């Protein structure tokens, strides 16, 4: 059922999730407007948006917790409306907080979910417990678990039946920095090595930058766009490169650069802005000229790139920029 799709960059990918023209109204308020995007197996897809943008509503629609008003959702090639059980069979997920049956042990809880899904053996349960690092505490009651431990159990629950689409709503909530890093590694590994599509929603951009291959940005219920992380970085920085020159005679160097028609953004530090593709060659040429003219050249360093955080704020605040 899964269709292979040729993506812009030429590689062939399998769509684990395909959302088309999704609309949703809750009460009198329309929450989602014509959402369209696809997520592929083998990637970590970041679903980004500020609070109240519609991330959780979208995830609830994908998991069948909310009913679809308009549009369609396909999971692993199965239409959610027409083949509810088959479509949900390839999803594993955590929606909002990882609340489980507190009066039961972690293992009892996992067994509950195992019974509702196909082909989950006791060995598989133990395997996922190991993956999330809960082996020592799995036979304790959930009421003694910390939020981080419950989050791990939630991930274990989501992985039980080897889903092709893993949906995690704000998964780093309540995790300590070490836990966040561990989770990030687990998710990357699942996506890249086990060919799962991992969809992670978050409002923490710095998190996503380190974890995601592609990012879909949603704002006020509308899809702003889907980008690869590199795309976003490059495009948000423009098609120019900036370098910082550390020299003994800044004025002279600046004059020289201006003569050669390179943009200089700052007279005292001398930031030189390049545009075009042959940056490396022209950089070498420029350095040569500078030394020939007797200016002492101490260091040349590329200016630090913008963080995804800044890009995100820029995008969501201006109502979206066209990239690529």
């Amino acid at each position, binding site marked *: 059922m899964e269709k292979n799709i040729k993506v812009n960059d030429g590689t062939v990918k399998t769509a684990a999730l395909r959302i088309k023209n999704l609309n949703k109204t*809750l009460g009198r308020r329309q929450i989602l407007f014509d959402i369209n995007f696809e997520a592929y197996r083998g990637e970590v897809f970041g679903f980004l948006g500020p609070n109240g943008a519609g991330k959780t509503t979208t995830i*609830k629609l994908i*998991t*069948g*917790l*909310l*009913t679809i008003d308009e549009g369609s959702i396909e999971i692993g090639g199965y239409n959610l409306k027409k083949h*509810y*059980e*088959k*479509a*949900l*069979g390839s*999803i594993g*997920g955590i*929606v*909002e*907080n*990882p*609340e*489980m*049956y*507190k*009066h*039961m042990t972690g293992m*009892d809880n996992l*067994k*509950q*979910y195992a*019974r*509702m*899904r*196909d082909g989950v053996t006791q060995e598989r349960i133990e395997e996922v417990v190991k993956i999330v690092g809960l082996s020592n505490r799995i036979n304790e009651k959930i009421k003694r678990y910390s939020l981080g431990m419950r989050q791990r159990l*939630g991930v274990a*629950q989501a992985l039980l039946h080897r889903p092709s689409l893993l949906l995690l709503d704000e998964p780093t909530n309540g995790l300590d920095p070490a836990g966040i890093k561990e989770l990030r590694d687990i998710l990357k590994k699942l996506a890249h090595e086990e060919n799962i599509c991992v969809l992670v929603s978050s409002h923490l951009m710095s998190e996503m930058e380190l974890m995601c291959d592609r990012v879909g940005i949603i704002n006020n219920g509308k899809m702003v766009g889907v980008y690869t992380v590199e795309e976003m970085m490059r495009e948000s920085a423009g098609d120019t490169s900036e370098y910082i020159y550390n020299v003994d005679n800044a004025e002279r160097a600046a004059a020289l650069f201006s003569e050669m028609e390179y943009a200089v953004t700052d007279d005292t530090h001398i930031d030189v802005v390049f545009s075009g593709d042959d940056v490396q060659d022209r950089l070498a040429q420029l350095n040569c000229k500078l030394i020939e003219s007797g200016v002492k050249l101490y260091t040349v360093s590329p200016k630090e790139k913008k963080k995804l955080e800044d890009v995100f704020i820029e995008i969501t605040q201006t109502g979206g920029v066209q990239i690529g």
Partner: protein
Amino acid sequence: MAKMHKLIKNEYIKTWKKVSTKVLFILIALSVLALMGLGKIVQGEMEDNFDYIFDSSMDYNYEINQAEKMKYDGYEVDIEMYNFIMDNEFLPGSWQVSATRDAFSYEVGDKKKIEYNYSQEDRMKLLQCIKNGDWKKYCEFMLQNSKKQGLPEAYTWEYQYRISKNIPLPANTREMFEYPNDVIESVAAAKINLVDSSTSETEDSAYTKEWKDAITLGMYRLENDIELNVAENTSLLESMTVNFWVVFCQSASLITVIGVLIIIIAGSTVANEFSNGTIKFLLINPVKRWKILVSKYVMCVSMGFLMIICLYVLSLLFSIIFFGTEHLNCTYLEVVNGVVESKNGFVHVFKNYMFRSVQVLVMSTLAFAISSLAKNSAMSIGISLFAMLSGNSIVSIFKKELNQDWVRYLVFANTDFNAVINGTSGFANHSLSFAIGVVAIHMFVFFLIAWDGFTKREI
């Protein structure tokens, strides 16, 4: 459907692992123990005060004083009678007491002349028999006397029967209420009633049938020497004694306790998933929502029946422990279409359990429906408990006080199948199929509400 049993298993595990569920089962055991305790107390009271409870006219000195004070016509005869009883130390409830009363019976004739009902010669004979305690001679005398007066067979049957079977008259109150005296007494009374009513103008067919059945049943017991009929030992309040069958039959009333407990479970099974936030993890699974709803409902209903079976077994066990195995092989005798039918007592009690569980089933379905609609366990438990405990009284108030017949269409008027079958439901032409129909429609509506509330809900 392979998945269905796994879903039900899940629901059972979830419910069973709660401490509160275990407490509920302990409560069932405690309520059975409480019933046994109550049975023992009533039994003790009856042992200690049997004569006091069933024969209050024991204080003859007091009676004599009263008679002397009031000096009514013929008081001297009464005093003589009381003295006769006291002098011979007849036990209360013994045949001698009633026979003495009979021998001293009189009428006040013209000029306040005392006229005994028996001739002087007969009285002397009678008192001699009584004094000697010769019940056989007494019976023979009564038999001849009745024949002499031309009374119908009904009046002489008891004496004839006792003489032919050599069954003495009761020697004290206790014997009066024991087999076979109680049976002989009831047959004789029914026979006399039947004869009397046939001569009177107002003949009531319902009573006639009742008396005829009483005679048939009584004769059956006497012929087969059946000491105890389970049908006469079904309630702590109505039975003359407390034995195994009384408490075991009475245990059916504890089904109400189970009703309360199962409403608590049914009213919280859906609502708690919402209030604990676990509903999202439940519904994210590749299982259609209606399947989860059905599995929860099946769990509630089967848990209820499990509790009922638990109650049955515990009651049986404790009844045996507290009241012995003496009457275990007694049967439930009933006259159906003029023929005595002998039924198994255990089956009868179980049938009674099942009849009573109808109300529990309906009310737990109501709790389940409200719980899936309102996501609030307190509300669903509260409403359903109120409905279960006061529904019957509300219906009877509407029917009896306000004469509103439409309340027959309410579910509360139809859950007591026993009353409907026996025609004691309070409604005219109340058939069992009507009751089953009303209950089924209500159940269907409740379940539809639950279905709609659960499968279409946005979470």
